[in-house]
């Protein structure tokens, strides 16, 4: 089992969350206890059980293939942190 700090670093990267060194020190004991807690699953006898994703009985619910209007441009942009005309403005991505 990797050291908790390494796990925090890798997981934070995957989750796109920046974690300061100070926070990492503060949370690592608690995080280690949580990982120990969820390890209880490993001790269960689950032979013969298929994964259950949901209590919902529905499968492949489709609507009629007809174009319908969604949110208007102005509604979709209403809460944008930064916008320009009909566009969301973001830092360059490449």
């Amino acid at each position, binding site marked *: 089992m990797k050291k908790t700090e390494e796990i925090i670093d890798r997981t934070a990267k995957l989750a*796109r*969350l920046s974690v300061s060194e100070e926070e990492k020190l503060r949370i690592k004991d*608690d995080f280690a206890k*949580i990982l120990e*807690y969820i390890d209880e*699953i490993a001790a269960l006898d*689950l032979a013969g059980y298929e994964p259950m994703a*949901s*209590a919902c009985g529905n499968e492949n619910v489709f609507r009629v293939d007809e174009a319908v209007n969604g949110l208007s441009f102005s509604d979709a942009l209403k809460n944008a942190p930064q916008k320009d005309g009909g566009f969301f403005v*973001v830092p360059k991505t490449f």
Partner: protein
Amino acid sequence: MDITQMTALSLGAEIREGKLSAPEVTAAFLGKIEQKNPEYNVFITVCRDEAMSQAAKVQEKISRGEKLSPLAGVPIAVKDNICTLGVKTTCASRMLSDFVPPYDATVVKKLKDAGMIIIGKTNMDEFAMGTTGETSFFGAARHPLDTGRTPGGSSGGSAAAVLSGMAPCALGTDTGGSIRQPASYCGVVGMKPSYGAVSRYGVIAHGSSLEQVGPIAKTAEDCAAILDIISGIDERDSTTDNKNYDFGADKFGEKLKIGVVQGVFANAEEQALNDKMLECAKTYEKLGCEIERFSITSLDYAAAVYLIISAAEASSNLGRYDGVRFGHRAEAFCDVECMFEKTRAEGFGEEVRRRIMIGTFVLSSENYDKYYRNAQRARAKISEELDRAFSKYDLILCPSASKFVPLLGQEMSDSVSRYRSDINTVCANLVGLPALSMPCGLDKNGMPIGAQLIGRKGEDAKVLAAAKAFLELNSKEEVRR
């Protein structure tokens, strides 16, 4: 009669009969909010102008003789993770502190179509992650009977609103107990319906396979009336079913067999709660039911299964908060990756970040089978055990909470014991069963205790009828305050 002490259905009847008007009733509750909210911090947003305007419109329809729902003209508080068009919906988070939805959630639209008045948005744990309200960006709501205690979570604001008379009823959401536990702590009735009964469109997602919107009110009848309004198949939520629930329809069947669950913790508080359930069972015996004690072995691991699945789903659902299209965006960043990381670190509180980390961990490729896939298989095992229980029993009875109402600050330090405390409520979410909390007495600190009734999937009306029968027999002061 003090308007703010009346049930939702009584208010609806008096408004319909012309003894009260919708604006008069709305103004009474707004007055109570103005008086009490500064102390209890129950509402994040109060919809004063919108509510009075809506009340006037509904009153016009009533005065014209239009046939409206039994709750037309009655105010309702809405948990702040449910989208309300034009009204801030924050999820009690910095991430959405200025977010104004451009649409109504389906449940909100249904309330409005039924003539109900949205009076305000209630305080909650951030993104519905928590059991005390203390993770709220706007500070915790306080228990109206003892402001040093929590009203519970994550729908603590909604439960406290009903207890304190700031609203006759409220909507909450329940992913792992978040309606039932605060209803228990506040001595009111709260119900999580069967999964699929109520649309989640417009409900800001935490655990999509687990959660349902449900009512919190003073009586089981009020809860049934609200569920009749908000339920129904919705083409915008493909997990909804088209069953005709008719929540208030069942008459209580005396020959029911009720299973009383043996608790898992060996501590004094849980022993006291178990003893209380045996007292409640005596009420059902008086009503002609057969009672039997039994154990649910899945309780040993259900809370861990719930943590893995809910955290996994939350980490996926909260991936959308990236500072691009809505919500908080960090001010200083070097590139787009940095913008995501800083935005999310700044926008989310500690518990939300913790759950995202747990969820991301269990979904990462090297851990997926060991944790997430196995948790889903354990979910199937829990479902099978409950199926077996319901082949013997018509209803299951157990405490809603696993402890007495805590003091604020008591619960926050130890994550694992907080997660374990969800023990009594999570099975109903994992398996999609209807489950309700009803007040059944007071603990040694004089604070409310809730008894939980769990039913077979789809038998929501039976659960509500059983609650109604219990509360009619136990309407003395010592059960509800």
